[in-house]
């Protein structure tokens, strides 16, 4: 799982398997962003889940958010090689309508044939 002080997590799975990545955060938030970062590129948003949504799906991706335990998860169903990337959760410590993302350490996911 990701959290501020933890080292980058690494997962290796086989194509076709399901995988879940977890994220815990310290400060209450109403929004959790899940970003994917491919090697040599900037992060790209894949799911944004708000506190009024306990679960959100996008294709093979599923995110959950539990504000009571301050945790979120990202699941990938039937992973494919192109899902190989680093996945970050981020909370938005917005103040006065100005955004400030706080990222977790990230999970490096490797999907092998």
């Amino acid at each position, binding site marked *: 799982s990701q959290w501020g002080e933890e080292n980058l997590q690494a997962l290796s799975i086989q194509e076709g398997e399901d995988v879940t990545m977890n994220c815990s955060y310290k400060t209450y938030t109403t929004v959790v962003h899940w970003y994917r970062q491919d090697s040599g*590129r*900037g992060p790209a948003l894949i799911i944004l889940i708000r506190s009024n949504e306990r679960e959100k799906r996008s294709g093979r991706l599923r995110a959950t958010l539990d504000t009571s335990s301050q945790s979120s998860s990202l699941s990938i169903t039937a992973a494919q090689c192109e899902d190989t990337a680093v996945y970050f959760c981020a909370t938005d410590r917005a103040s006065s309508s100005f*955004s400030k*993302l706080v990222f977790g350490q990230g999970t490096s996911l490797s999907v092998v044939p």
Partner: protein
Amino acid sequence: GPKVLQIPSHQIIDMGQMVTLNCDPVSNHLYFYWYKQILGQQMEFLVNFYNGKVMEKSKLFKDQFSVERPDGSYFTLKIQPTALEDSAVYFCASSFTGGYAEQFFGPGTRLTVL
């Protein structure tokens, strides 16, 4: 989708020199950000910028750092003078709205300070 561009992709400079990192944000976006990522570590917020002003900065945004977007051109991060600990990848991001908005990130500029 919308793209944020960053120039250069890699910059190598000697400690003490000045460096300017350039960001070309998404054209209709109004909010701009810089983040810093040291190799193997998490990405960390540096600053957000709106309507020509810094709205919030982190403790990583040292006095040697400055940002500006003159006349709607590039959004720049200037470091003067640079220090060894400034070596990192710097990511620019932009968003159309403020709080809780999707931020679009550029590919990063890898800064190496020797």
